[in-house]
């Protein structure tokens, strides 16, 4: 049976990026933005499920106006349509506010299943998707590395990985799943896919379209407020221990004990 699958994707700086700060904020000029890697694993699973069972994949991205280019990648690899939520009034929120925006959007999109990332690799919040699950009163399975539909198509059986331990979790559908590395890498877009993506629909929604109360979203709705960003503390220069492997290893053992005092 066909599935309507929504994938929640955030726009984040490429993991290769050097993060430069100016006046307590990230310098975004020159940064290469991509879809968040964990969300991409979820997108791949969604594409596979729709290939096997039919249906539709809708990519949903909430972000700044220029995030539109980033969401096109989801269309280029095979998502059928995209929703781009963007509005200055929605900016400056925390995870709680973001989840409210996404939950409001999801009330307007029919779905059987939602995929998201375990965490977005910018702020590493690891909470937006789980908050959305609670706000929509949906069950969730977090950190999925293996996903199987039950025969009746109304439930799923997953292997999930948490703190190095694995367990099998079952859930009824609809449900939210967050993807963990190991679920499978996202395919590359084909040239045809990239060309075709230009013709696929991207729906734009703003705060008014979602009907969210202004006090609950954006900077006004944020309960946790960022005051500044700082570079991580610099590390003092280290030393290369000279000599052959044997000599150097002995010296290292001494240094770790007597100088660094860590063992």
């Amino acid at each position, binding site marked *: 049976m066909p599935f309507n699958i929504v994938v929640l994707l955030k726009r984040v700086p490429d*993991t*290769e990026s050097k993060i430069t*700060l100016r006046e307590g904020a*990230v310098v975004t000029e020159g940064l290469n933005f991509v879809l968040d890697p964990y969300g991409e694993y979820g997108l791949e699973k969604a594409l596979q499920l729709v290939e096997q069972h039919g249906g539709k994949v809708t990519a949903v991205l909430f972000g700044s106006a220029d995030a539109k280019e980033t969401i096109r990648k989801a269309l280029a690899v095979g998502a059928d349509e995209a929703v781009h939520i963007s509005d200055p009034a929605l900016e400056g929120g*925390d*995870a*709680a506010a973001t989840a409210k925006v996404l939950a409001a959007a999801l009330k307007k999109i029919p779905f059987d299943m939602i995929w998201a990332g375990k965490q977005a*690799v*910018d*702020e*590493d919040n*690891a*909470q937006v998707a*789980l*908050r*959305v*699950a*609670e*706000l929509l009163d949906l*069950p*969730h399975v*977090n950190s999925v590395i293996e996903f199987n539909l039950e025969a009746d198509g109304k439930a799923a059986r997953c*292997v999930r*990985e948490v*703190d*190095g*331990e694995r*367990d*099998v*979790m079952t*859930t009824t559908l609809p*449900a939210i799943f967050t993807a963990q590395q*190991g679920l499978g890498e996202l395919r590359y877009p084909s040239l045809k896919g990239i060309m075709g993506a230009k013709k696929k629909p991207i729906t734009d929604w703003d705060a008014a379209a979602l009907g969210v109360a202004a006090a609950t979203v954006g900077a006004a709705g*944020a*309960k*946790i*407020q*960022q*005051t*500044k*960003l*700082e570079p*991580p503390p610099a*590390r*003092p220069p280290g*030393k*290369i*221990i000279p000599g052959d*492997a*044997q000599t*150097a*290893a*002995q010296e290292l*053992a001494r*240094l*770790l*004990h007597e100088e*660094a005092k*860590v*063992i």
Partner: protein
Amino acid sequence: MSNNILIIAEGRAEGLKKVSYELVNMAQTLAAALGGAVEGAVVGSNVGAWAETLAKTGVTKVYVADDKGLEHFAPESYTTALAAVINAAQPAIVLFGATGWGKEVSARVAARLDWGLATDCTAAQIENGALVLTRPVYAGKAIAHVQAKSFPVMVSMRPNLVPPAEADKSAAPLQTVAVTLAAPRAQVVEAMVKEKSKVDLGEANVVISGGRGVKGPEGFAPLNELADTLNAAIGASRAAVDAGWIDYSHQIGQTGKTVAPKLYIAAGISGAIQHLAGMSSSKVIVAINKDPDAPIFKIADYGIVADLFDVIPALNAALKAQAN
């Protein structure tokens, strides 16, 4: 709402996790500044022993939600139980450990109660009556300073930041919290038992990681031997994980685990920015690499330019000799 801090303890078959004791210590500092008490909570099935241990760590009360329905992990049931405990305690701040479990349940409970939540924090203090926190973002490439706009608020704190509280004080009273659980839609049906490393990566004082330079699954053998000597956990680069030499659960880095042990030994790892993201806040970093130009040497406190298969066994022998 009180001025109290509630810590949510976490356990496993062997007993409470170390992070639970660390949370008590962190909460003491916050409670002193806020003029409140530190209380603890235990949720699960058959968790009386955890509650009794927690009661001796210096907390003033332990809330216990003990229900058969919590025997197997089910996000909805745990959310309900935690919400009940939090409603009973009425704290200003709830502290969770930023473990996989803590991060998962805290997010859902925070949404249910409509509270703010700052995850994976590395410092927490009260300034001018407000809770201010630091949390690494962009996988540690920047440190965010965040503030809770109001109370109550939830926080998850990274393990290993402060010493654990001792469970040697007189026992605080236990308060049972009744929970009514509906049948969960999502639940754990089977724990997959696999060969587990003896030492938990998140809690380890020493982590020894291997990369592409270990050349194969058997290349981890000398690292394992050294790990036995140092009571260390084994980590890996993504290259070693992707090659299938070691399980993903050992991966350190931006898309793996973040660790901050006292000692991190990187063997045969070049030091890609995504790897550094997961370990650069370790106290002391040792790099062993054949290539003197490997970027890992830029952040290492001690470096050895040589073949890891010569250095690791020699280091193991030297440490054993030193210990005697």
